[in-house]
Structures are given as structure tokens and as C-alpha cells.
């Protein structure tokens, strides 16, 4: 059945042409048949008429009674189909004639001349008892054009209808074919889009999960690290063995913090501070760093163009991403090879964007990291950005390197593309959003800790989690601040009203009651001169929208060290 349909589709033009030809042929045949039929009928009728006349004129013709002949001939006038009548005697002389319309000379040669085509002319001998007496000539009126045409109306209508029908059918089939093709294309596109959507949903789900875990871990790590930090500071003169243990514990904690930071990066939940960055310069600096870090067997080449646009990106995170890619490249080239870091301007157009649903067309700065390593098998190429996915032996890799790259670039509004051929190498292309801001002077205010000095500034600390609150209070105290601690917004506002000496509000953002942002707004309404610093380990909250900090907001990212806390607080007090 399907094969038949296919054959029909393939031969459709031929079939249609053949059908049309058949219809036209049939119609012509019908018309010709009708014409012949009519002619035969008319001829038979004319013959009968002529024979009747021949029978009646015998005596008059034989005895040359002209008047009787004329009357007999004129009797045919009643038959409107008779156009001309001639009666000839046995010697072929015209004895009587009748002609409708203007007289013509045709009777003189009527018996010998052939009839004009389309005219029905008959001649019949006049005889009596076997005696030939003469000839009757009779011409039928040639049919009026309208009557003749009317006989063709049927076939012509048939042909026209058939042609119309066939053309409609053909057009319909064409339209159907077109629709079918476009439907197939749409289906393919939809399947592709659905696959992409599934992948991105999976990534998002994993991101949410890892983000949630990382957040909780961050809080715990904040307590652990902070406590260890305090321990280290307060008992600086303790047993060196104990201090070494503390140091080791802090190292472990920091590594755990780094891990959670990468998890957050993948989850796109890590707070980003993008700024206008010179990628070319950054890449060159990175190359120097990598040369020192990677093996001698790996040759590193940085290629960049002049006039490279500036990117709107969080530079330290980009550096982390490039290091991650470089480490992957190195691991892919155990026997050595070449690592190329290339940067260029790129414009992703709509065609490119349509292939990948997540890309917004526009200008980008492309940073590609290529190696000449083992490459990635095509079947796992889709999975390499998933967290904890690693091809490295257990314990050698966390499976978070490419996840960090992916999460960070996506969070930054960029785009990642990976190309790989087994045995040839891998290229990861990062497309970073272009910055339209001009390069500004980078202000770095490095403020060291001033332990032991009382500052005479009271900090109102708001944190719902007791462990973090206690650690933070200790830390603030160590930094020389006086501390008022509250576990929620209501208590905090109460304290604020009763304590005019409070000069700075350090508040967590995510809290069960009113969030830190609302608390800060209310506090600032009551005390416009109040300085505010937020603490957060999580970006999807009131201060950080889509991972980007509100302009002007001071933020300490958990887990924090005393140094970073001090720096942020000093900056807030100074600003």
C-alpha cells in the first residue's frame, strides 16, 4: 500500500498529464462522434426528402410541366432545413429550382461539382418504372454556428471541469507535499529542541540539588573554618603541634569550601561580580601562570587579535574556568602536546542561535582552549558538562571542572561549545558577552586586619543560624567591633531602636521571617545613616538577582574569612 502511494507520488505529474490527455482525447472523440452522428442523421434526412421529391416530380418532370414542378419544388420551402433544391431532366438540364436566400449560380454545376465541406448535399435519380427521368439535387442548410457550438458545449465543459479538477488536485497535492516537508522539518527541529530542553532541565535540576547541598555545606564550613580561624588567633601562643593540627583542619576546610564554590558555580548560584575586562591581557597573564603550573611537555600558545572587544565578565571566575580547561587539556595529553588559547571577536547570528535554543544572537568575545589530546567520544560529549561526570580514574578528578565552566559562562550570559575528535583533540569555545563600557581604573582597596584594636563601632548582627551567628559575633569582636546579635528581623529592629550606637548592620539575606533585604530597607528608613553589609552563601535571593549583585550592595560571601569580612566592613564604613 505504501509502495503504491510512493509510486503514485513519484509518477503524479505523468499521471495527471496522461489523465488530462485522456480526457481531452475522449472529449474530442465524443465531439467528433456527435458531429458524425449529426451528419449521418442530416444526410439520411436529406436523402429521404430528396427521394420523396424525386417520387413526386416524376410525371411533371417527364412531361415538362414547369409550373407543376415549381410548385412541387417550392413545397419544400416548408422544411427550413432545406437550403436549395434543383430538379434536372434526363439530359441534365435544370427544370426547376428553389433556393433560400440570395440566388447563386451553383445550380449550373451542382450535379458535377463536389459539395463544399461541411455542407450536406444529396442527389437522387428521378425514375418511374425503372425509367430514368432526371435527377433531384438537394442541399441542406449548413447548421448555424450557435447550434453547432451548442453540441460541443458538453465536451468542452467536461474538459474544462476536468482540467480544473486536475489542476486543483495537483495544487492540493503540491501544497500537501510542501506542508508534509515543513512538518517533517518542524518535527526534527522540535525533537532537537526537546533534547536540548531535557538536557538543560537536567542540568538545572542537578544544579539546584548541588546548589542546595553546597549552600548548607557553606554554612557548616563557615562555622568550622571561622572557629578554627578564631582558635588560631586567640591561642597564637599555644602548643605548635596543636597549631599545626588546626592549620591542617583549616586546609581541609578550605578545600571543602573550594569544592562547594565550584558546585555553586555549576549551579549558577555563585555570586558573580562582572565587570568590563580585557580578555586578551587576562589570557596572556593566564598563559604565564599555566606555563609554570603545567608540565614541560605541554607547549602553550596564546593567540589573540588586535582590537579585541572587552567582555562583561567576572574575571577571577573566568581565570578559574580557563585553569579548569587547561587541567583537562593536560590530562588529555599524557604524552605531551600543544595547548592553544585563542581569543577573538565573534558574532553569533540568528542561524547559529536557532541551532542552539540557549544562545542569544549578538557580539561575543570568543576564548577557545584547544588541545592535541585523546579527544572525547561523541556519545559522551553531551555529558561532559554534567557535574561529577569524569573520565578520570576515581580520586583523580572531581567531575566539576567543566561543570564550573559551563555554569559560570551560562550564568554570565555567555555560551559554551565543545568540539572534539577522538585522537585529534578537543576544543572548548567560550563565548563571553561583550562589554560596552569603557575600561575604567581598577580600584583595589586592600585593607589588612587590625586585630586587637577596639573601633568603637557597634555592629548589629542578624543571622538566623545560631552557629554562624556565634562565629560571626566572635569574628566581629576579634576585629574590634562591638556586637549586638539578633536571630531575626523583628528582634533586630527592636535592638536598633533601643541602641542608637549601632553604626552598621550585618545581616544574612535568607531568613525565615523577613529577609535581609527588607530588614535593611526598614532599618535604613529608620536610620538613614546606617551602613549595611549582607552575608550570603546563596545567590538566588533578594540581594543577588540571577547571580548578579545589586549595584551598591555590600556583600560577604559565606564561607568567609576574617580578612574578607574585615575588608567588606571597612569598605562599607568608608563608603
Amino acid at each position: 500500500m505504501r509502495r503504491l502511494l510512493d509510486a503514485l507520488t513519484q509518477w503524479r505529474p505523468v499521471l495527471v498529464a496522461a489523465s488530462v490527455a485522456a480526457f481531452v482525447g475522449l472529449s474530442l472523440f465524443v465531439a467528433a462522434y456527435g458531429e458524425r452522428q449529426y451528419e449521418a442523421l442530416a444526410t439520411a434526412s436529406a436523402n429521404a426528402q430528396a427521394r420523396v421529391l424525386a417520387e413526386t416530380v416524376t410525371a411533371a418532370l417527364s412531361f415538362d410541366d414547369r409550373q407543376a414542378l415549381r410548385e412541387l419544388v417550392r413545397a419544400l420551402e416548408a422544411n427550413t432545413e432545406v437550403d436549395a433544391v434543383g430538379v434536372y431532366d434526363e439530359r441534365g438540364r435544370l427544370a426547376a429550382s428553389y433556393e433560400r436566400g440570395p440566388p447563386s449560380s451553383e445550380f449550373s454545376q451542382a450535379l458535377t461539382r463536389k459539395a463544399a465541406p461541411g455542407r450536406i448535399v444529396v442527389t437522387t435519380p428521378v425514375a418511374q418504372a425503372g425509367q430514368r427521368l432526371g435527377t433531384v439535387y438537394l442541399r441542406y442548410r449548413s447548421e448555424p454556428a450557435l447550434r453547432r457550438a451548442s453540441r460541443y458545449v458538453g465536451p468542452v465543459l467536461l474538459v474544462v471541469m476536468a482540467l480544473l479538477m486536475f489542476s486543483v488536485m495537483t495544487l492540493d497535492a503540491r501544497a500537501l507535499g510542501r506542508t508534509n516537508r515543513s512538518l517533517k522539518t518542524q518535527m526534527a527541529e522540535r525533537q532537537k529542541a526537546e533534547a536540548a530542553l531535557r538536557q538543560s532541565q537536567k542540568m538545572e535540576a542537578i544544579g539546584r540539588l548541588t546548589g542546595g547541598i553546597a549552600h548548607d555545606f557553606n554554612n557548616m564550613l563557615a562555622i568550622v573554618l571561622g572557629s578554627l580561624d578564631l582558635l588560631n588567633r586567640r591561642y597564637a601562643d599555644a602548643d605548635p603541634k596543636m597549631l599545626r593540627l588546626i592549620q591542617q583542619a583549616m586546609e581541609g576546610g578550605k578545600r571543602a569550601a573550594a569544592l562547594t564554590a565550584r558546585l555553586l558555580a555549576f549551579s549558577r548560584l555563585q555570586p558573580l561580580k562582572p565587570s568590563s575586562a580585557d580578555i586578551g591581557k587576562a589570557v596572556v597573564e593566564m598563559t604565564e601562570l599555566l606555563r609554570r603550573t603545567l608540565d614541560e611537555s605541554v607547549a602553550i600558545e596564546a593567540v589573540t587579535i588586535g582590537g579585541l572587544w572587552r567582555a562583561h565578565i567576572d574575571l577571577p571566575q573566568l581565570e578559574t574556568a580557563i585553569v579548569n580547561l587547561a587541567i583537562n587539556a593536560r590530562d588529555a595529553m599524557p604524552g605531551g602536546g600543544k595547548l592553544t588559547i585563542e581569543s577573538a571577536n565573534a558574532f553569533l547570528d540568528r542561524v547559529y542561535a536557532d541551532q542552539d535554543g540557549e544562545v542569544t544572537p549578538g557580539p561575543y568575545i570568543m576564548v577557545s582552549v584547544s588541545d592535541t589530546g585523546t579527544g572525547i567520544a561523541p556519545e559522551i560529549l553531551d555529558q561532559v558538562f554534567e557535574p561529577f561526570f569524569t573520565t578520570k580514574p576515581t580520586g583523580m578528578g572531581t567531575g566539576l571542572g567543566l561543570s564550573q565552566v559551563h555554569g559560570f559562562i551560562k550564568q554570565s550570559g555567555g555560551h559554551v561549545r565543545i568540539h572534539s575528535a577522538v585522537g585529534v583533540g578537543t576544543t572548548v569555545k567560550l563565548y563571553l558577552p561583550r562589554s560596552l563600557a569603557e575600561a575604567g581604573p581598577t580600584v583595589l582597596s586592600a585593607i589588612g586586619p587590625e586585630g586587637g584594636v577596639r573601633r568603637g563601632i557597634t555592629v548589629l548582627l542578624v543571622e538566623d543560624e545560631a552557629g554562624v551567628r556565634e562565629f560571626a559575633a566572635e569574628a566581629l569582636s576579634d576585629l574590634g567591633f562591638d556586637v549586638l546579635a539578633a536571630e531575626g528581623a523583628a528582634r533586630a529592629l527592636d535592638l536598633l531602636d533601643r541602641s542608637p550606637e549601632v553604626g552598621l548592620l550585618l545581616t544574612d539575606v535568607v531568613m525565615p521571617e523577613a529577609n535581609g533585604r527588607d530588614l535593611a530597607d526598614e532599618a535604613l528608613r529608620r536610620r538613614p545613616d546606617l551602613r549595611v553589609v549582607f552575608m550570603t552563601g546563596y545567590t538566588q535571593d533578594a540581594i543577588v538577582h540571577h547571580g548578579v549583585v545589586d549595584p551598591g550592595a555590600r556583600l560577604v560571601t559565606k564561607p568567609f574569612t576574617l580578612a574578607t569580612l574585615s575588608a567588606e566592613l571597612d569598605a562599607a564604613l568608608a563608603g
Partner: protein
Amino acid sequence: MASRRPDFSHRGAQRRRGAAIVSTIVLMLFARVADAQVAPEWAVKASFLYKFAPFVTWPADAFGGSDGPFAICVVGDDPFGAVLDQAVMGQSIGGRPIVVRRMAKADRTAPCPVLYAGGGAAQVKETLQVVDGAPILTVTDGAGPTGVVDFVVEDGQVHFRLDDDAAARNGLVISSKLLGLAVSVNRRKAAP
């Protein structure tokens, strides 16, 4: 046919009278020319003699079948002369050549399908009496008694009267077409 009669009785008569006066004058001046004028009429009558044949059916057994030539007999005075011989020359009736037989007296047994009774009224009467009842188409020329066919000249044209009753007596059947062309017809009596 009937519509022609009134036309004849009015203007035709006048014209005939005029023609007669003219012909009398012409006769007196050019006798030969007058002769020539009469001749066409007799030529027509001569041709009529054989032209009747296709319209007449003789009994199948007349004159012992239809073999031999078809004879046109002229009894008594012959008004045709060579004209008749010329008229029938090359003609045939039903494939039978036409011959002209001239005889002084009528013969009932002579094979004469068509018989012209010439001469004066007495001679014509005698001839008709001899052949009465025989399968013969008798032709007369307006002098006294009339045969089955009787020539009349009207308006310079040769016409004829038909006596279908006499034809029936002779066992002849005359085609209705011929009857229709006659100036007048003596209808046959209904069979008793």
C-alpha cells in the same frame, strides 16, 4: 393543378386569340415559317407518346409477355412523320427498344401497347371501337371521340386529358402521378 385553370380561362384565352391573328398573318406571308411553328407541338406530342409508358401498367399477359421491342403504333393518318421517329430514337421502355409502327387500320391483336388514333373523327371512332377492351393505351388528339389519353393544347403548351374509366376497361392502371398532371380526368367507375 386546379389553381392553374382560372388563369388559363381569362388571360390565356385572350393571348391565344392574339396569337391566332398573328399566326394567320404569318401563315399567309411565310408558309414555311408557319410549318416550323407547328412542328414543336408535334415533337412534344411525339415524345409524350413514349413518356406515358412508365406511368402505365399493362396487364402482365398483354401481348404474350414483355419480350421484343416496345411498339408505338400510329393508326390512320400520321401527323408526326419523321418527328416521331426522331423522338423515340435511342429511347427504351424497361430495356425494350421503342419502335414505331404505322398502320392504316387498327388491329386488335397487333402488339401495340401505345396506339395513336389519327385521322378524322370517323376514323378515330372506328379505331377506338376496334381496340376497345384490349390492353392498349389509346391516344387521341381532340378530334371527336377520345381515347384513354387525349391531347389538348392550352396556352401554347401540350397537355392531356385522361379517361381512367376507359383505361380500366382496357385493363390498364394509370399512375396517380400521371393522373395528377392531367388537365382533366374521367374517373373510373366504382366496380359494380
